[in-house]
């Protein structure tokens, strides 16, 4: 079973995304911010990280810099072009961008294609 790490400071988003992915047959772990995410990565190696790019606390660039071997999908309320302007999408393991509020089917199909390709 593939594991997805969902990082978002909003509890309802964590739970909703977690629910959708669990029903679709993934194992889901969650983290509330960058620090928590790095903690979780000590003990877990997820196949994919869904990462909110605007969270209080440590900047997410810390995660992106440290985690180079796991695919990351950004989730954000701002548009992709705005995120790009902030120089966030340059790392090669950042593979996709989910504009919030996302369409359920988009989320599922994105995760599916990303994780199946790896096999």
């Amino acid at each position: 079973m593939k594991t997805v790490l969902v990082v978002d400071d909003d509890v309802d988003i964590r739970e909703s995304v977690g629910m959708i992915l669990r029903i679709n047959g993934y194992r889901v772990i969650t983290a509330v911010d960058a620090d928590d995410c790095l903690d979780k990565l000590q003990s877990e190696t997820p196949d994919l990280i869904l990462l909110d790019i605007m969270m209080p606390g440590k900047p997410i660039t810390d995660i992106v810099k440290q985690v180079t071997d796991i695919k990351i999908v950004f989730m954000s309320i701002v548009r992709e072009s705005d995120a790009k302007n902030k120089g966030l999408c340059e790392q090669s393991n950042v593979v996709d961008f989910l504009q919030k509020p996302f369409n359920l089917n988009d989320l599922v199909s994105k995760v599916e294609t990303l994780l199946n390709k790896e096999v």
Partner: protein
Amino acid sequence: MLIDLDDEGFDLKKLVFSKINRKLTFLFVIVALIAPILGIYYFYIIANSTLSEALFADQGDLIRIVAIAIIVIIAVDAGFVGFFVSRSISKPIKKLYMATKEVEKGNYDIRIDINTNDEIEELGNAFNRTTAALGKMDKERREIDRAKTEFLSITSHELRTPMTPMKAQLQMLEEGYFGKLSKEQKESLSIIIRNADRLDKIIVDFLEISRIEAARLKFDFTRTDLRKIVKDTASFMKGFAKEKNIDLVVNTGKFPLIEVDPDRVSQVLRNLISNAIKFSENNSKIEISAKAKEDHILLSVKDYGYGMTPEDQVRVFEPFYQVDSALRRRHGGTGLGLAICRGIVEAQKGKIWVESIVGEGSTFYFTVPLKPVRKIEPIKVLFSQKSVIERKIREEFKTILGPLGVGEFNELKNKNALSKDDIFEYIDSLTEHYILECDRGLYFKNKIGGIFGDKKGVINNEKDTFIQNG
């Protein structure tokens, strides 16, 4: 910032012909002439009566010459003294004048330094205090303005955050993640989802407006074939036009590749086309065209729909302005689309406007400059034309009806009768009761019509009927 007169350069002509200089110098010369003339006149009389006749006759010419010479020398001296004394007054006044001009331009940091130790120095100090107070007010106004935009931006982001889990849960329900739904449940759910989408759209529009107002609107300029953008946008919108069987006709001239943000042009076009579709009848057509002009490209979207009154044409770019509330309610939409279009176009120093005739349709125009504007300036989008229009109407009432006009204006305003038709009716009643001559009435109507966006000549037609009616 201190005013320095020397910066202005030395202008002898200005200096000599300063009115204060002239007046004071003249005054000095007059005073200086009267005193020696009187003095010498008395001396002359005394000399005449005391000196022996022979001696006086002998020395008379010399005395006269010396007397005239003394008078002339004193007059010239007085002129100089007067000139420099007056300059000490006119110089600080000139300083004050230049500082006031700076304030007029909106520079409230200006301070003047006058050390004359008199009333003019006091005036200068008062001026400094006034500009300081004005500067403070201006700063506060800017801060409030910025706070408004900031508030809009933060609120929109905060409002958008809960939309994400809400929509996710709704979609899971809809997709049957939690079990099969009955027909009624599905219907209820689709209404909730539709309105969640609508709410989200409004929030997105608010975010866009906050970006425009804070000059944070992003433009990604690339060399673009605008014709392709127009064609692509039109074919994208064909899907929406199909429902009403509306034909989208694209008509573009030839023009070179220009540097623009294709997404922004497309965004404005999409908005205008979707509006045109909304306000068109079934089975009609919409013409989209692009023409190269001297320093810009002129794009237009023409429909054969309901059209707009002149007042609507002026105010249609205001946020939430309802052209026809019944129509809008039927078609939905946030009421912010055109306001956003205006913001995007004006951020590129372009123009956007509409020409329309009721019952015949409307044409929206906007321009895209051939050279991109990289320095984006803030644009006020959340701004109503209503107060501007009312102020203009009030001015016209005042100029045409005199002091009474303001009272009349207020009365109409209280009755909520400030639409163009209401005012025309009011003017008609004035002419009917011979309070206003026909010519004046027409002039008045022309002025009011102009405020509501009437072109000259529209009302001239009415002139004929007016004359026929006597």
